[in-house]
């Protein structure tokens, strides 16, 4: 993530640039999901009864499990970043590895949920509530998948010895992204699964 020339000879500038870059990127993600949350709000206000009835068809237990899974995965990321800041590359790899496993578990649970819905004849086209449910969780799921890729890449970098207590930018930036993905779910879960 640093410049190809000697421009980023100053690692502090490189780190600050990376941080500003990732935060800006997260701002774009807020707007991306924001548009969908806006659609949710518009339709919820328009069809309160339908939302109440339909949302009961979602499995709150599985949703809660996924919430716990994601929060734990974020914890793993925090531990991993802390580890590399102290120079512990192996620990970083272990923690990020755990994060990836938890993310995979998240996606498995989502697969189970989706499969159950399809089995009952509920699809994105069934009604507006489920259109929103599938679009929101689907887009979120894509971000989880991309995050898994990103974290894997950080593990690869670490295994090649490129990360240390002096240079951990990729780890920290990926961590920021992962926390954002977690945060989106923290909004998604109550809005879709819990609110009556």
């Amino acid at each position: 993530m640093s410049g190809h020339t000697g421009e980023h000879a100053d690692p502090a500038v490189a780190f600050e640039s990376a941080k500003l870059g990732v935060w800006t990127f997260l701002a774009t993600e807020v707007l991306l999901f924001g548009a969908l949350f806006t659609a949710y709000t518009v339709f919820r206000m328009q069809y309160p009864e339908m939302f109440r009835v339909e949302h009961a068809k979602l499995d709150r237990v599985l949703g809660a499990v996924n919430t716990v899974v994601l929060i734990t995965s974020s914890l793993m990321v925090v531990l991993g970043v802390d580890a590399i800041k102290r120079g512990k590359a192996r620990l970083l790899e272990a923690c990020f590895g755990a994060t990836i496993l938890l993310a995979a578990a998240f996606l498995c649970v989502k697969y189970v949920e989706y499969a159950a819905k399809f089995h009952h004849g509920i699809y994105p086209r069934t009604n507006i509530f489920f259109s929103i449910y599938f679009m929101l969780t689907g887009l979120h799921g894509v971000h989880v998948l991309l995050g898994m890729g990103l974290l894997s890449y950080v593990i690869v970098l670490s295994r090649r010895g490129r990360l240390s207590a002096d240079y951990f930018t990729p780890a920290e930036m990926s961590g920021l992204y992962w926390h954002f993905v977690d945060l989106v779910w923290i909004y998604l879960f109550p809005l879709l699964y819990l609110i009556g």
Partner: protein
Amino acid sequence: MPVETESGNGRGYLTERGWRSWAFTLDHKRIGAMYLWSTIVFFLIGGVFALLLRLELLSPQAKYFSNHTYNVFFTLHGSMMIFLFIIPAIPSGLGNFFVPLHIGARDVAFPRLNLASYWVFAAGFLVIIGSLVAPMDTGWTFYTPYSAKSAAAVTTLSLGIFLIGMSSILTGLNFLVTIHKMRAPGMTWHRLPLFIWGMYATSIIQVVATPVVGVTFLLLAAERLLGVGFFDPSKGGDPVLFQHFFWFYSHPVVYVMILPAMGIVSEVIPVFSRKPIFGYDAIAYSSLAIAFIGFLVWGHHMFTSGMSPLANAIFSFLTFFVAVPTAVKVFNWIATLYKGSITFESPMLYALTFIFLFIVGGLTGPFLGALATNVQLHDTYFVVAHFHYTMMGGTVMGFFAGLHYWFPKMTGKMLNEKVARAAWALVFVGFNVTFFTMFIHVENVISTIGSAVLAAGILLMCWNFLQGLRKGAPAPANPWRALTLEWKAASPPDTENFHEIPVVTEWPYGYGTPKA
């Protein structure tokens, strides 16, 4: 800091040859050049569609093309011009080339991301071209339900536009970080060239607005593929919701189009008047103001869509306030000319043309912002004339000004001034003849004649560029005697831009005869 002379063979960043040196380059100048070539090609193709439209409009009944073909042509004209030309041309083309040079940096903050943005753009345009197997006829606004029901390759096109949008976001993100973090020592915010202020405001808009249109096209694709019904009334959806999402991006994006061009005008006017820019602070802050207010007014495209009179009133009120910072720029540019020492080289001709035509475009804005008159003029040729005056009379003229101004720096060659001026004259006359009558009474024959003259001018200009590339006289580092940092680098610049990073001690608009 002394002006750098070129080293070696005088080809600077262009020295290395071979397609790989371009395809995998991390040099912002090469990436900028690739964007420029691509966007100019799309400008010409989009222009061809316009000429075909004008040909058909010579007669009232369908003569050369069927109704459907005509509708496809105007959709392609609008979509290509907007998504493949006018949004990326100045920011990703000239911006990529000159932002680092202007701030005294060797490159942007994230060079690999920059290269990725070009390849995402290329993927986008390839996908869009792929959608031509079943081209859209919806018009560039793709309103639902028609676009969702259309037999055309909507999903493919939506994906293509999504990719173009992603490229735009990556460029904006890169510039924001670059401008914040990579300014040369001594380059305070108030010593930034005004082109940079314009690019900064543009980047903010790109980053904030584009994701919304990305989701909009994703949802349109989802309507087609998954039967999702956000915009489909038969499923409980709302067609007007599409319009809200679409215009939430598409209004701010017009400021993405105009702010960089205004930045170029702010650079060119002082240089060719030999006077400091008048009201630097106002011009700088007005860019931010325009960006901010621009986010609040999207509803003015929808006054007849059934929105409540209250909502309409709010949007109309806010819309007028965009006019104030815009007017400030115009007054400041004109004030810069006062007691100047003005010469009329081709960059200046285009910059003055920008001001002249943009004033016309801008003064037709209030008719559209005012509720009572908007109702009459919405969805008529008055709007077509308004946006062509601002987008073509404005942005495109600003783009041409930038191309002529920076041609020596980018290529190391000088253009033939006489031919450049002749082309300018054809463009100026052709443009006005094509579009002016649309404000009053559509005169198709006159407009078509004008479009032929305009096309001739543009072709002559392009030919001049090609001739300049092949046989232009070698350019000195600073042919216009300008003070911004890019003119300290060689023409063309070295790959690393500067031998040493400059230390900035002065404001870059210190033109003018010092008082004794």
